[in-house]
């Protein structure tokens, strides 16, 4: 199978998996075919000065690459599959697993490709019988003490060891010595369990802690076949990036307490999306099956999160499952119990009241939640103009969840826990107030009506419950929310909103990159996207009908991008202006969820 040239189809799946809303910069590990299809030498991208290029002979083929580049990376970029365990594109290469040994002509011994910088005229052979034998023997060696655990192992189906064995080995073991046993269920920290028997001692996890999280928490202890991974004495594996060790672990040695034994990896479907945990906007893959999300894993994007994401972000999927508002309710206000009703009725009720209020010239507050998508917020800003045209007095507010300064670090995590603060600020306009202003205006009775797109306020649950009665003075309170809260319960119209994983749309992160969300699961109950709810209310209230943004999320996106970027001088740096981020935004291709078993063996 090694001779098989990479198929274009295979690469298109791989490319689709990597595809992001923002144009991705060429990753170092180029998916095999994309690069090989391009003329040799162009792989590292147009940025690299041609003077540094050298030519090596790879399996008899002339290949150009940057001088000093990692040989393994060059191989992978040119579609030559060299098995490896310990190498990781985001980490340093210690060459401990010896799986990537290749033959360099002139060198008596085989060399580890991941540890060999290329030099001009180097001749490399990766599939001579010597290399293949060594590759097989290394695998035999790695498997010598490996337990027969696949059926109960969380990694099964996406295990690199399984993949390498199936791709390169197929032989049985020649050893008859009983296997060495090691501890099976070691608690390493709040999120992680170690099965030392399965560990193949690649040290990837150690390097993740050292190099990504910057905290030296893991180490190797003992020697020989009793060598095993352990936490440093008195420590726990508890850094905020600890679950990345589970992702990088090529085998099922490290498993996530949250995910283990919930779902088989190969049954999951993957949909690319963006983490809603904070304003960094780490790119993630949503792994879902049976209409539920089971885990989030980081998706490579060198501009944003490289290969990583934080532990907290991984658990944001739980809010998609739990405590959801699933049906529309119409309430009497002032904390009286609300009645469940159909979405249509609730929307019609809201629209009728809104229309009346607007034409009476009352002051209406519009809340732009930084937890909602750009498209919804853009739609709200469009409706705001219509309301003004009807004679209403509009006040805009940007709200969101409370920021957490303590979580900010220089790695990925930022203090702002809202994924779309930049977008919300942009669409609410320059004069928009914040949550404090909203509360103050409510208390002062300056508002007659309030329409919250996202009921997120920077208040604790207790504080919110205490503050809730201040909305009782309103004539109309429309609240679109994903989950139940004390505030929501006092609204006249309570509309169930879909959350990030249930909608198509985009978030703008703190670097002003507009990144695409994709619908992974169906909205719970009657929930609809904020965009759809706004559109329906606007239509029923005769504010807007048949507008482009009412057609679909994609149309809203396109209209939004053209509106935002039209007012912008060309060539503005995204770092300076949010709008500049929109200019380079791209909706991307539609994406059908791929089952992991067929996503070309993630292992």
């Amino acid at each position, binding site marked *: *199978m090694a001779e*098989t*040239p*990479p*198929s274009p*189809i*295979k690469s298109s*799946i791989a490319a689709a998996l990597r595809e992001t809303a923002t144009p991705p910069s060429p990753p170092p590990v180029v998916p095999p075919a994309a690069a090989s299809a391009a003329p040799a030498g162009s792989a590292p991208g147009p940025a690299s000065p041609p003077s540094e290029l050298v030519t090596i002979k790879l399996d008899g083929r002339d290949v150009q690459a940057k001088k000093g580049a990692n040989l393994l990376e060059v191989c992978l970029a040119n579609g030559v599959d060299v098995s490896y365990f310990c190498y990781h594109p985001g980490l340093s290469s210690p060459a401990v697993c010896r799986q990537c040994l290749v033959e360099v002509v002139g060198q008596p011994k085989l060399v580890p490709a991941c540890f060999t910088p290329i030099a001009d005229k180097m001749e490399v052979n990766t599939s001579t019988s010597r290399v293949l034998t060594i590759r097989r023997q290394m695998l035999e060696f790695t*498997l010598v003490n*490996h*337990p*027969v*655990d*696949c*059926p109960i192992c969380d990694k*099964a*189906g996406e295990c690199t*060891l*399984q*993949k390498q*064995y*199936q791709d390169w*080995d*197929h*032989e*049985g*073991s020649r050893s008859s010595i009983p296997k060495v046993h090691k501890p099976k269920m070691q608690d390493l920290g709040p999120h992680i369990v170690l099965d030392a028997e399965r560990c193949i001692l690649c040290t990837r996890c150690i390097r993740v802690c050292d190099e990504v999280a910057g905290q030296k928490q893991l180490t190797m202890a003992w020697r020989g076949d009793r060598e095993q991974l352990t936490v440093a004495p008195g420590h726990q594996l508890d850094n905020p990036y600890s679950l990345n060790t589970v992702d990088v672990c090529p085998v099922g040695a490290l498993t996530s307490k949250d995910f283990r034994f919930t779902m088989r990896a*190969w049954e999951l479907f993957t949909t690319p999306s963006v983490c809603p945990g904070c304003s960094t906007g780490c790119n993630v893959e949503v792994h879902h099956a049976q209409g539920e999300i089971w885990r989030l894993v980081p998706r490579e994007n060198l501009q944003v999160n490289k290969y990583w994401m934080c532990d907290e972000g991984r658990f944001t999927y739980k809010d998609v499952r739990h405590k959801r508002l699933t049906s529309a309710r119409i309430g009497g206000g002032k904390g009286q119990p609300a009645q469940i009703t159909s979405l249509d009725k609730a929307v019609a009720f809201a629209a009728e009241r809104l229309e009346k209020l607007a034409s009476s010239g009352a002051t209406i507050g519009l809340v732009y939640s930084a937890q909602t998508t750009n498209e919804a917020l853009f739609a709200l800003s469009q409706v705001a103009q219509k309301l003004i045209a009807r004679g209403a007095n509009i006040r805009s507010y940007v709200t969101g969840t409370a920021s957490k300064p303590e979580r900010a670090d220089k790695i990925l995590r930022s203090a702002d826990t809202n994924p779309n603060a930049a977008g919300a600020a942009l669409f609410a306009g320059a004069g928009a107030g914040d949550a404090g202003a909203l509360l103050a205006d409510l208390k002062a009775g300056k508002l007659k009506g309030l329409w919250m797109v996202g009921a997120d306020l920077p208040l604790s649950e207790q504080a919110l419950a205490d503050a809730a009665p201040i909305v009782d003075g309103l004539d109309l309170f429309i609240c679109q929310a994903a989950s139940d809260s004390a505030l929501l319960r006092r609204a006249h119209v309570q509309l169930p909103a879909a959350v990030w994983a249930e909608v198509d749309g985009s978030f703008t992160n703190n670097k002003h990159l507009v990144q695409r969300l994709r619908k992974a699961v169906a909205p719970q109950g009657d929930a609809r996207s904020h965009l759809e709810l706004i559109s329906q209310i606007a239509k029923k209230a005769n504010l807007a009908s048949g507008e482009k943004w009412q057609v679909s999320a994609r149309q809203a996106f396109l209209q939004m991008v053209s509106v935002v970027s039209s007012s912008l001088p060309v060539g503005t740096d995204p770092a300076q202006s949010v709008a500049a981020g929109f200019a380079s935004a791209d909706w991307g291709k539609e994406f059908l969820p791929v089952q992991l*078993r*067929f996503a*070309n*063996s993630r292992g």
Partner: protein
Amino acid sequence: MSMTTQSKTGLKTLAFGMPTPDEIASGGSHGLSARPKLPPDLMSKLNAADLEEVEDIELPTEPMTINMGPSHPATHGTVRIVLTIDGETVRDSDVQVGYLHRCFEKEAEYATYTQVFPYTDRLNYVSPLLNNVGFALAVEKLLGIVDRLPERAQYIRVIIGEISRITDHLTCLGASAMEVGGFTPFLWMIKAREWLWELLEELTGARLTHSYVRIGGVSQDLPEHFIEKLRATLQKSTSVIGECESLLVKNRIFRDRMDGVATMSAEDAIAMGWTGPCLRSTGVPYDVRKDHPYLVYDRFEFDVPVGSVGDNYDRFAVRLEEIRQSMRILDQAMKQIPAGPVLLDDPRVAMPAKNAVYNTIESMIGHFKLVIDGIKVPAGEVYSYTEGGNGELGFYIVSDGTGRPYRCHVRSPSFIITQSMSKLILGAGIADIIPTFGMINMIGGECDR
């Protein structure tokens, strides 16, 4: 009750929703659009403004549009035929297939290669094993292991394939008798088919949906005494087939119903893409087993029976003779079959032994990967064809290197032969439609896929 209405041309027409001559002339109404297309000469007559010409016809009649199927009690599978009839004579017909569409090709894209076998069972469901073999050979061709298949497995495939061909033909022949009203020979043939299916059930564990073949061989060896039992069953079947033959072949009514009905010339048959017994009935001796031998077919002596005029009786007779030829092949295969493994010993396609799977990590991984990810087939495309029950059964597979087909297309003989149906029944009587349909043996599962 007004059963008649006066049309503009003055002709009385039955108010059964059939088009009036005006409507026919103007391309029709009734939601059937321009369906009732008439032969041009009749068209021009109906177009004629003066009715004298129409009255030249003995009795002024006009065609009736009538819908046969999709749930007609006698159609094989579900098929709809929109007929334009003049009395009982078919003047035009529109054969509409697709009512049994099950997305075979799309389903195959979502299953590993091994998981596709159960779907192939449901193509031509009268001879599932032939489909199994056809699909397996296509994948094996793509894997490049066709030449390495174990001998015994190849013989087993021939044996089960020929048994299936016999069951296929038995069903078709029996049905042909039933379709002209002879129910008894049908059940006799079905009885013989059942004996053979019982054997296959013993072998595969399932009466109809065998899923017995695997990539690289077959799933298990023949059970004990299989060969002896097969021999005995074939003997029994021969006598049953002889009885049926004497009840039909020399029966004047049966011959009158079959002879000269729905003839097809060899040129037309080739032009229409016919294969299999239907093509051979027109006199073309094309048989994939002879012309492009696969498996071990080149080691057997057998004849390819052909017909002469390509009518229903030729199709009947060719199938009858093919049963005999299949028995001949079976006879030789039973004598020649060697001992040995029945599955290719290649860890890329064959599962490791169960004992090893439970006890060593290596086999465990191998088993796991084959089951979960499927057999990794190198990227590329392949067209592989075998002689199915109804003709050349081809599989076109595109692989992207993963464990499931990127695209899987079936060239199903039924589908291609069915396209000639309109031509065959043009001018025949209503009573001939179903027997003709039976003799081209349109199997819904295979035709609609």
